[in-house]
């Protein structure tokens, strides 16, 4: 099957800065793909390479099998939802949404009808006469979405589209984007620095750091089987365990990771586990996050709400199932 988007050894350098550095990537048609990473990790540049706003310094890019290097943005069947929405302030909502059809030369009646349908799709029917400045942030975001979708793109690119919204709105939009993607069957490529967002929405996640892809996989892969210390730390803040420690439990001298929720905390002085002391406890609502000190090794554990909490400084024993200890590829 031809991938929706394919990168082969793609680099984009700005002078000495390697914004994107030899990236290989395949995005399957119809999937929800997230590019996750801290700011400056190259994820947005990758998105702009797909959109055509940037051209690769080296490497090949294909969109549904068609070579994309040198093709300007207006000749790609790809549309973008911008971080700041980039609505046209001089046009009303209907003409904003119909813009893509207008420049393609589609008649007024037809394009306005299509725009009206797209507005219904994002649950803003009847907002056509308003100006962008009269809409709230969440509504502008929906208009930006409708304006992209009305062109029936093969790939929809979303650049941190939920970044400017408040928590409640963000959660609603996550659900809506996800169901919209299922209904339309369009490939969505989504850039975010929020690991929760990436894990909850995407079919596959690529984790970026320093212009390179650290790992690509399903959210579960990424979360449970990180390959490097960076991924373990960035995605869900796993406990990163040094090679010496891992050797004692697995016999192999490699870096390891252990999810905080895999650690059981028992009040005891028995020596059938790892003895530790409580440093601090963070109440998070459904869970409480404990910071523990095990002979100089800082570990985090998560316990469900309602568990009786140990005192600070109290002697504890930590146990975990050895299956839960994940050995990473990163060499010691």
């Amino acid at each position: 099957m031809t991938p929706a988007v394919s990168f082969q050894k793609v680099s984009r350098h700005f002078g000495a800065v390697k914004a994107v550095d030899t990236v290989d990537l395949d995005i399957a048609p119809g999937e929800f793909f997230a590019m996750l990473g801290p700011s400056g990790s190259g994820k947005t540049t990758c998105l702009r390479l797909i959109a055509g706003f940037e051209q690769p310094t080296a490497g090949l890019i294909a969109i549904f099998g068609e070579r994309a290097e040198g093709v300007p943005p207006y000749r790609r069947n790809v549309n973008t939802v911008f971080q700041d929405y980039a609505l046209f302030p001089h046009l009303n909502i209907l003409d904003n949404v119909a813009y893509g059809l207008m420049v393609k030369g589609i008649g007024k009646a037809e394009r306005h009808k299509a725009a009206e349908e797209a507005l219904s799709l994002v649950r803003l029917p009847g907002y056509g006469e308003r100006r962008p400045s009269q809409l709230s942030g969440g509504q502008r975001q929906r208009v930006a979405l409708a304006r992209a979708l009305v062109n029936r793109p093969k790939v929809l690119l979303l650049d941190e589209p939920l970044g400017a919204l408040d928590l409640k709105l963000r959660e609603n939009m996550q659900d809506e984007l996800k169901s919209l993607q299922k209904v339309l069957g369009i490939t969505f490529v989504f850039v975010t620095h929020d690991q929760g967002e990436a894990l909850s929405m995407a079919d596959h996640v690529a984790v970026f750091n320093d212009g390179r892809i650290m790992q690509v996989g399903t959210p579960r892969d990424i979360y449970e089987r990180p390959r490097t210390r960076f991924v373990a730390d960035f995605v869900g803040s796993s406990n990163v365990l040094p090679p010496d420690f891992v050797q004692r439990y697995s016999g192999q001298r490699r870096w390891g990771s252990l999810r905080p929720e895999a650690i059981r905390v028992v009040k005891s002085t028995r020596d059938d586990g790892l003895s530790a002391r409580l440093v601090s406890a963070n109440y998070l609502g459904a869970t409480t996050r404990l910071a523990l000190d095990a002979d100089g090794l800082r570990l985090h554990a998560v316990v469900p709400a309602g568990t009786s909490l140990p005192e600070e400084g109290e002697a504890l024993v930590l146990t975990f199932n050895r299956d839960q200890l994940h050995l990473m590829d990163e060499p010691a």
Partner: protein
Amino acid sequence: MRSDHGQIAPLGLKIAASFGLLFLHAPILLIFVYAFTTEEKSYQWPPPGLTAQWFAVTWNRPDVWEALSLSVRVAAISTAVALVLGTLCAAAVSRSKFFGRETISLLVILPIALPGIITGIALRSAFALTDIPFSFWTIVLGHATFCVVVVYNNAVARFRRTSGSMIEASMDLGADGVQTFRYVVLPNIATALLAGGMLAFALSFDEVIVTTFTAGQQQTLPIWMLEELIRPRQRPVTNVVAMVVVLVTLLPILFAYYLTRDGDQIAGSGK
């Protein structure tokens, strides 16, 4: 808490303000009055008699028409040149980062900061050095140096306020460069260009100093007026011309005010 709105200003302030406005505008009225005087050799107050004959005299003077037509053509073409060059330069400076960007920005603004006499002498010596004969085009060139600046300043301010991703959004939605300019860039900078263009036209229309150095034998309207003041013949003709110019320029200014006021309402609503 008491608001100052609606409070009545003290009488002294009112009188002072009236005098200020009177000082600004009374001389203009004086020009109007002298257009109707019967005394043609000097400006005598009060006018010995009133007549409308100078309007007919002015109408039949070919030198007035020549000067007026030259000024209009120079101003129109300088403004057109300034609109193209100023907008392009503003777009380059505000859209991209490149080596020497600040220097270019400074060099573009310099002609309006320099005294006109410097620009005039510089251009005159440059024309002499390169054997370019004085003509209509040398006047246009001289005027364009400062017309570009006002268009550039207006356009650059507007470009800074418009989001750069708007142009990308337009391209993303399938518009090529020309379409993007026509449907997105131009509507967003139009009022700035109108304001800059009108200012450029006005600057060119009443420019004297640079023109004296670059015009050769031709007379633009302000230079014609200056010459007329020295010659003690049919003086009120100058006043008639001045009066007509004031009335004619007032119309586009009111029109532009009306247009930009409308535009501000659109841009400002709810922002």
